[in-house]
């Protein structure tokens, strides 16, 4: 899973985020007020315009204080009834069709079927729920205005904020109900789709002899199901585990059947639907001469997320993990890593690229002997660092030590005072190297972690549905807001555009970073004008442009554009960043911090949207 930024701790995030939110809101309010004043000035002259804007603002604050829940719920019920009587159930039918379709064309024998199914189900649920809500929200109010039913409503003592809020709640309720149904159906679909069993009989197995000729165990292959089979290695008593194929393995147990024969039971797939809780570290690099460097190697015009280390040199990637508690890892440190391999020559394609991992105490620099592994692409490699490890002594030779005694640094200033009981949290370094000459390992900070535990997959799925729920709320709010002053189809388009701008938010901040740092590799190709020029003249984005006056002028304009564009984009919500389907599909637990942040972010957009919608509706002659 790609995780470009660390997920900040909620308590650290909330303060600054709230401050910049208020700032943004204030700027936005001033801009809206200014535009309203300008428009009114054209119609009524500057003084009267100022008066109107002032009274509008005062009236709005008054309205906010006078909201009646009975009226709001009346509008909510109306919206729900309207949706139900206008056949939203069609959307659920559509979802059923999607499931049928998915069952037919999704390939259960793919490399990682759990990921495929989850990704598909969550994406289509998200899309359908948001689409249904968007259409309902965007078309309802314009239809009311067109049919003039709104006139009967606004001549009752109902405030525009109640109309907008009520509608928003109504469509959100419909969205929530659809999400519940789709979520449950999707869950059942995924669980059923990835579930499978293999058969294993005595005939599939051959004996494995130990050095002394006694029976060491059995070896063989399971039956072929869902496009794969597993190798199994069993102990002499007949139990063990299969190897990992398609992202999962099975446990195998032997028992005696009634007629005295030995029967093997292959358990359900493990590791397909998981919610791993990673403890992530901070990544630094050593270059090929072994000296510290901020970055690895970039292997071409690839996106800077992943850095590469060269094989068979001193180049290394080093993760520093903090907050390691003996009580959390009583059996040692389970390391998991997702490593990309970049081959400069084909080598033996079957064999995979070997690498090594060493654990090091950052203070004393005491280091374990290397653990070797072979990097498999697209799967998670795991290594268990046991409690008792061999370290190389300065005098030469190795000695066995306890991981937490010698390798975990619990004394440094950076760590803080150790617990009285001696089991305080500590710091550790893990060093990764590639062992094959002229081949490279690609690593990213998030791709190498300690498995701190496993959460419940069901809960994780629920959390992901919560992410969809946030998106749905956002879409409902924006849709309703636009529908207060635009016609239905235009409101749909406007909402989609806002969400689209939100999608490029990340990109714009990268571009900003690229300009500020002068590092053209962050966003190759420059700003909008330069990019346009490159598209027309067909100059590759990696080529430096010749510094002619025209090019310099172009770049200057781009530089001028960056700040307003970034500001604008920062104002727009990003549905992409609310989505947490990627976590679930990749089998990672969604951090609660992230959910808390997303919930506040959603609220932060929804509330002003509703107020804005109320303002628009109030400023509008609903009867003309």
């Amino acid at each position, binding site marked *: 899973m790609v995780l470009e930024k660390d997920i900040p701790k909620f308590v650290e995030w909330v303060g600054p985020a709230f401050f910049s939110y208020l700032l943004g809101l204030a700027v936005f309010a001033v801009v809206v007020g200014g535009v309203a004043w300008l428009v009114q000035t054209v119609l009524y002259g500057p003084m009267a315009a100022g008066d109107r804007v002032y009274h509008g603002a005062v009236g709005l604050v008054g309205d906010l204080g006078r909201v009646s829940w009975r009226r709001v719920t009346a509008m909510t019920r109306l919206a729900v009834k309207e949706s139900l009587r*206008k056949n939203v159930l069609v959307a659920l039918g559509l979802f059923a069709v999607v499931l049928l379709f998915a069952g037919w064309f999704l390939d259960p024998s793919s490399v990682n079927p759990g990921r495929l199914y989850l990704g598909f189900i969550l994406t289509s649920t998200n899309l359908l729920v948001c689409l249904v809500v968007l259409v309902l929200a965007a078309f309802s109010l314009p239809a009311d205005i067109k049919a003039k*039913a709104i006139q*009967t409503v606004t001549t009752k003592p109902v405030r525009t904020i109640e109309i907008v809020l009520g509608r928003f709640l109504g469509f959100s309720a419909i969205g929530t109900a659809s999400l519940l149904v789709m979520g449950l159906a999707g869950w059942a679909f995924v669980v059923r789709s990835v579930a499978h069993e293999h058969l294993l009989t005595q005939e599939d197995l051959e004996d494995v002899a130990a050095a002394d000729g006694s029976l060491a165990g059995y070896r063989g292959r399971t039956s072929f199901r869902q496009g794969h089979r597993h190798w199994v290695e069993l102990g002499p008593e007949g139990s063990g585990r299969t190897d990992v194929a398609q992202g999962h393995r099975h446990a195998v147990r032997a028992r005696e059947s009634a007629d005295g024969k030995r029967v093997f039971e292959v358990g359900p797939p493990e590791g397909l639907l998981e919610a791993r809780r990673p403890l992530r570290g901070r990544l630094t690099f050593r270059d090929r001469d072994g000296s510290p460097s901020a970055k690895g190697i970039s292997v071409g015009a690839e996106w800077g997320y992943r850095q590469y280390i060269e094989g068979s040199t001193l180049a290394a990637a080093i993760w520093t993990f903090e907050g390691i508690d003996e009580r959390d890892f009583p059996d040692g440190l389970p390391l998991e890593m997702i490593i990309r391999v970049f081959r400069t020559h084909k080598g033996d394609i079957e064999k995979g690229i070997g690498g090594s991992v060493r654990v090091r105490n950052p203070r004393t620099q005491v280091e374990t002997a290397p653990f070797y592994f072979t990097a498999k692409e697209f799967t998670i490699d795991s290594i268990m660092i046991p409690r008792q490890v061999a370290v190389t002594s300065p005098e030469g030779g190795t000695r066995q030590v306890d991981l937490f005694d010698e390798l975990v640094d619990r004394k440094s200033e950076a760590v803080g005072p150790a617990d009285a009981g001696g089991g305080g949290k500590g710091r550790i370094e893990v060093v990764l190297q590639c062992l094959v000459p002229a081949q490279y390992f690609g690593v990213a900070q998030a791709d190498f972690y300690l498995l701190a535990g496993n959460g419940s997959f069901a809960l994780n799925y629920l959390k992901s549905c919560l992410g969809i729920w946030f998106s749905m709320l956002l879409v409902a709010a924006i849709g309703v807001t636009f529908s207060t002053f635009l016609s239905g189809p235009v409101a749909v388009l406007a909402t989609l555009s806002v969400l689209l701008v939100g999608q490029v938010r990340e990109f714009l901040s990268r571009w900003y970073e690229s300009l500020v740092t002068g590092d053209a590799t962050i966003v190759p190709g420059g700003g909008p004008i330069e990019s346009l020029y490159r598209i027309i003249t067909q100059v590759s984005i990696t080529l430096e442009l010749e510094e002619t006056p025209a090019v310099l002028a172009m770049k200057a304009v781009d530089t001028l554009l960056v700040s307003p564009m970034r500001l604008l984009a920062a104002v727009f919500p990003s549905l992409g960043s609310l989505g947490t389907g990627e976590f679930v599909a990749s089998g990672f637990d969604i951090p609660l911090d992230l959910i808390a942040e997303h919930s506040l972010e959603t609220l932060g957009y929804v509330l002003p949207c509703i107020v804005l919608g109320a303002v628009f509706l109030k400023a509008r*002659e609903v*009867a003309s």
Partner: protein
Amino acid sequence: MRVSDRGGAPELETEGLLVNPGTEKNLVAAANAAGSSSEIVVETRNLSKVYRDFWGRSKKVALKPLDLQIRRGEIFGLLGPNGSGKTTTLKLLLGLIFPSTGEAVVFGRDATEVSKNERIGYLPEESYLYKFLDAEETLDFYGRLFDMPPEERRRRATALIEMVGLTRDRKRQLKEYSKGMTRRIGVAQALINDPELILLDEPTSGLDPIGTREMKDLILDLKARGKTVIMSSHLLADVEDVCDRIAVLHQGELKELGRVEDLLRVTDTTQVRARGLPPAALEELREVCRKFGGTEIEVGNPTITLEDLFLEVVRDADARPGRRASQPRS
């Protein structure tokens, strides 16, 4: 509205509905019920409306500056041909559209203020209701908008549905209703809050003679309960039958304003009415008239009808645009 089975005139069954004893505002209303008081309920000052398009360009001058004062307990009629600005005036009073100049004041507050709606009932030109609701749900919905507690909502909804004679159809969605039925539920909706001021836009349009009659009775009944009613119509008979005062609009301009009797009284003509006079007496009457210098002596034809007045105003307005109501009529 229910026609009573006593065979006489249609009678409204509004028991315990429009008068809500015990509330202070109804006591005030009852005190004023005897006739129109001096309290001004609606006032417009220099009120005008120009419809504009998106770019702010003027599309239509729908109402030229209008000054009106409507008192509590009055039935005020807005009379005028189609497109004369009646609906525009009502919408301005309701705050549904905003004035281009001047202001509309309702219950002493600006017409765009929402809180005034607590005391207002409005029946639009056509009943603009939610077609997917049934009659009960409709009244319940609007009752909620008045923040009424459930018990009161249920009571009023039942009584109003009974009153407008939709009891049997109360569970049917409005999209199945006929025009007359839609109008009835529209009336019920407008009265859900027992309003003090009721604005009716063309209340009798599209109704059959019985429905029209019931509507007029309802209006008179509202007056009897001290309510103020402003209605618009292009149907002269309606206005003549129920209105205390009328304003005649033509192309957005006020042409006539006053009490109906005053407007229809022909001041330079004398009418004598008697029963059972022999033809000789008629001849003698003519003689007397001639003796006092009377001309064009006629018997019968006591007043002009409102229709005459209406046509005259329209004809006159076409011939001499710009004449205002304040100017004496020729």
